[in-house]
């Protein structure tokens, strides 16, 4: 059966942050992909975070329209509109993004986390050398709360060393996953 994130709409209407966490885990990858067309014009990470905050603000008033994943479709529209606003504000647009753009009209589907892929990542993560693993874990533990300079200082690393270790962690994980038949550059697409 297809995944319909609107099944937790009632909990979201009550302002349940745990329900929103459940929704985020399944909606974020698709929403990020839907903004790919803007990647050279805007900082997608910033626009995505702002979009998700606005989704939380409107979630309590959201009324399902009878079709699956209505809130996800609304989130996509919010993200797309914020992205267009940012392009116009920064005047960096070399093409005209509008409501008829493919990125806004294409369908969007949530993603249920795959336990087998998850197991493979956990095994590869356990094989990482200490310093790349520490750098990656610092990023995860921070949850976006601290800039890299602060995370590097906490680990006793220079910023450059910290960044090199994060890159190394990603490369080693990609190589390990590829040995298990998983292409990191494809799984998120």
């Amino acid at each position, binding site marked *: 059966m297809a995944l319909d994130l609107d099944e937790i709409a009632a909990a979201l209407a009550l302002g349940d942050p*745990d329900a929103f966490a459940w929704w985020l885990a399944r909606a*974020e990858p698709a929403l990020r992909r839907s903004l790919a067309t803007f990647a050279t014009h805007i900082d997608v990470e910033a626009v995505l975070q702002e979009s998700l905050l606005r989704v939380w603000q409107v979630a309590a008033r959201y009324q399902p329209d009878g079709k699956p994943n209505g809130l996800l479709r609304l989130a996509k529209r919010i993200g797309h509109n914020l992205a267009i606003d940012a392009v116009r504000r920064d005047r960096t647009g070399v093409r005209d993004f509008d409501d008829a753009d493919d990125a806004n009209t294409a369908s969007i589907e949530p993603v249920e986390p795959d336990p087998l892929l998850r197991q493979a990542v956990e095994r590869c993560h356990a094989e990482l050398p200490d310093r790349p693993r520490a750098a990656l874990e610092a990023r995860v533990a921070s949850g976006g709360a601290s800039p890299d300079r602060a995370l590097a200082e906490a680990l006793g690393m220079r910023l450059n060393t910290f960044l090199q270790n994060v890159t190394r962690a990603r490369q080693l994980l990609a190589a390990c996953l590829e040995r298990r038949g998983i292409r990191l550059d494809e799984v998120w697409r």
Partner: protein
Amino acid sequence: MTAEERARLVEQAASAWRPRDRDGAVRAHPAWYDLDDTGRREAFEATAEIRWIEASLDHEGLSSTARAVLAQIGRER
């Protein structure tokens, strides 16, 4: 820009940390502005990869993007 400088900027832009303006709105990472189009595309792809890894390692399936948003709404402490 050297390949090393670009790689450093790409990795910084792939973090979930973002500055906020006076009204609390999320702003672009300073490193992102220093990237050319190729670097920005690389940063987008590196971010998508690392978020997928983060979510796979998290017991709730949440990436650092999701955690940053949940912190803003007061769920994370």
